[in-house]
């Protein structure tokens, strides 16, 4: 029933969208991209999307209408074509992309960090490894002064407190990345719990959203949770150092997330399906995530496809400073260039690309300038 209902709703939205655009193009033919850009999906992307949209509107007058309904919802919406683009934290599988005629590309990155509430322990003092984190989340390590934690933190005065595990209650891209990381580094976790956007958690209690998790952690002495880095930075909860792929203990930072992205091999990722988990690199943070934009390769209305791509090109070129300020991580310039090249796959009914980015040289120069 949900599907027909969504279809009906979609049809309705499309109708209104069509009439809007029809009216707009009738008014002025030489306007490059008329009408608003509509998108839906990732809640993680929403705050940055809104800020970008604000600035973009000031310069171009074009509005972005983004509904923060969750990654899964975003992919569902783009499949039934109710929006111009979907945004998701978990990459769509290549087979799924081909089946629905979709293209996905990364737009921005972010980190997921474990946070704790322990007496006298501040940000960056507690060290953990991936397998130990998995053991904690499986309830196998029960107290903060248990031997495995003490072994990693010789100088630290660990309290004899029970560990309270806090997780996300709602289905979420954050949980998807976190559980995929645990499954990657701990075979027991992979076998007993698995990885998905919602789990059957062996222990602990669930907070609603990043805010719910950080509220529970703040209120519970001896608790551990995981949130987006931006949330941890905003709420000031103590973050944990993690051991990365190369064996170094790393504190979470924009630089550490960027280091994880630097080692990523986008060129050999079919359908751009790539998880930046446990990436090699001396300074790389192990739990890094990417927001993907999903669009149809065949655009029924080239104008709206062009408008969306123009916006993303603008975001690639001009959006890095804003992203960094909001604790997101911009993509490396060469990845952006690679993605710009892939946009030629997005074509109108006539088979021609709906949008051709400005000359490669200026684009690279601009993104290099904004990265500084």
């Amino acid at each position, binding site marked *: *029933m*949900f599907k027909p*209902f969504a279809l009906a709703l979609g049809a309705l939205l499309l109708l209104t969208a069509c009439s809007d655009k029809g009216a707009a193009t009738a008014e002025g033919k030489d306007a490059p991209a008329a009408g608003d850009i509509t998108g839906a999906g990732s809640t993680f992307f929403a705050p940055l999307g809104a800020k970008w949209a604000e600035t973009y509107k000031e310069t171009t007058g074009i509005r972005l209408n983004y509904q923060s*309904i*969750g*990654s*899964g*919802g975003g992919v*569902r919406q783009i499949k039934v074509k109710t929006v111009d683009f979907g945004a998701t934290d978990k990459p769509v599988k290549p087979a799924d992309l081909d089946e629905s005629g979709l293209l996905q590309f990364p737009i921005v990155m972010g980190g997921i960090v474990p946070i704790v509430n322990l007496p006298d322990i501040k940000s960056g003092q507690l060290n953990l490894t991936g397998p130990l984190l998995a053991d904690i989340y499986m309830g196998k390590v029960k107290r903060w002064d248990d031997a495995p934690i003490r072994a990693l933190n010789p100088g630290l005065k660990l309290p004899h407190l029970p560990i*309270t595990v806090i997780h996300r*209650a*709602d*289905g*979420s*891209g954050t949980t998807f990345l976190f559980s995929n990381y645990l499954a990657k580094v701990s075979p027991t976790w992979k076998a007993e*719990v*698995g*990885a*998905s*956007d*919602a*789990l*059957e*958690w062996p222990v*602990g*209690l*669930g*907070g*609603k959203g990043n805010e*719910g998790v950080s*509220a*529970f952690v703040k*209120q*519970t*002495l001896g*608790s551990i949770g995981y949130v987006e880095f931006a949330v941890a930075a905003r709420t000031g909860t103590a973050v944990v150092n993690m051991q990365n792929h190369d064996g170094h203990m790393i504190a979470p930072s924009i630089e550490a997330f960027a280091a994880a992205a630097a080692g990523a091999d986008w060129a050999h990722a079919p359908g751009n399906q790539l998880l930046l988990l446990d990436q090699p690199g001396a300074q790389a943070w192990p739990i890094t995530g990417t927001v993907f934009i999903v669009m149809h390769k065949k655009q029924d209305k080239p104008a709206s496809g062009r408008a969306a791509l123009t916006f993303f090109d603008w975001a690639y070129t001009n959006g890095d400073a804003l992203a960094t300020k909001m604790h997101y991580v911009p993509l490396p310039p060469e990845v952006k260039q690679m993605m710009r090249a892939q946009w030629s796959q997005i074509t109108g009914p006539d088979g021609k690309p709906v949008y051709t980015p400005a000359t490669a040289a200026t684009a690279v120069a601009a993104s290099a300038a904004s990265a500084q």
Partner: protein
Amino acid sequence: MSLQSARHPDPVDPIFRGLAFAAATTLLLTLGGLIVALMIGGWPAISKFGFGFLTSSTWNPVTEVYGAAGPIVGTLITAVLSLAIALPIAVCVSVFLTQYCPKAIAQPVSTAIELLAGIPSIVYGMWGLFVFAPWFARTVQLPILTSLDPESFWGKLLAGVPNGANIFTASIVLAIMILPYMSAVFRELFRSIPPQVREAAFGLGCTSYEVVGSVLIPYVKKGMIGVVMLGFGRALGETMAVTFIIGNSHRFPDSLFASGSTLASTIANEFNEASGVHLASLIALGLVLFLITFTVLAIARALLSSQRY
């Protein structure tokens, strides 16, 4: 004038009748459509898990095995607990307002109680999470945890993580939410009692307590049960406030201070990202909730209509 209109009936009348009929049938059709929609949407889950869907407490999105027992039990426990808390308070409030309270104070107090009903659910949720839960953890849970033997009966009943996110606090927040509605209807019930009944009881020499306990409450007993059921129905379906504070784990709660989940909170939490059997299971949860609420409300209606005032 009246003769003329008798010969040529006003055309407004049949139009209005048609409109009223259409409104009523649309509502009925919507209700029927809802049930059908829930059944169709939930069918993949119902056909896959069968009756076990109601009895299994596994809820595993990774292996795609779903059972509704955890949320069903959580829903019933929180609803019953919140009623147990709200009922005595609601009775006392309404008795006070109708029997003891000076008229000058009764009106402002009633208005204040009705205002409580107007506060959006999400506000109760935020208050519960950020204000009430930490307070409860500090002043109730921690002293209990430190003073009770964890192996004793009470220790086991009141065991749990001391952060205030549990079934008991969720029930208290729920109780506050259903209280205004219940006390408002109780007040109307008490007001509907003919004054002669009360005067006669006083005439026989009853004390105020005896009048309320032995005459007034028995007089409106059936109606009260109906109101209780309506309050129960509301507590069953309440979503946002509970989602914030219940702790959201799908296991069977093993103590009063354990985290749990309800049917509505599970749907609210997971609907965004669900697809396939997961989505169908969530819709099936909705069907279960619908059936429970429907049964409760049907009983309430029957009880309420059997007594007229």
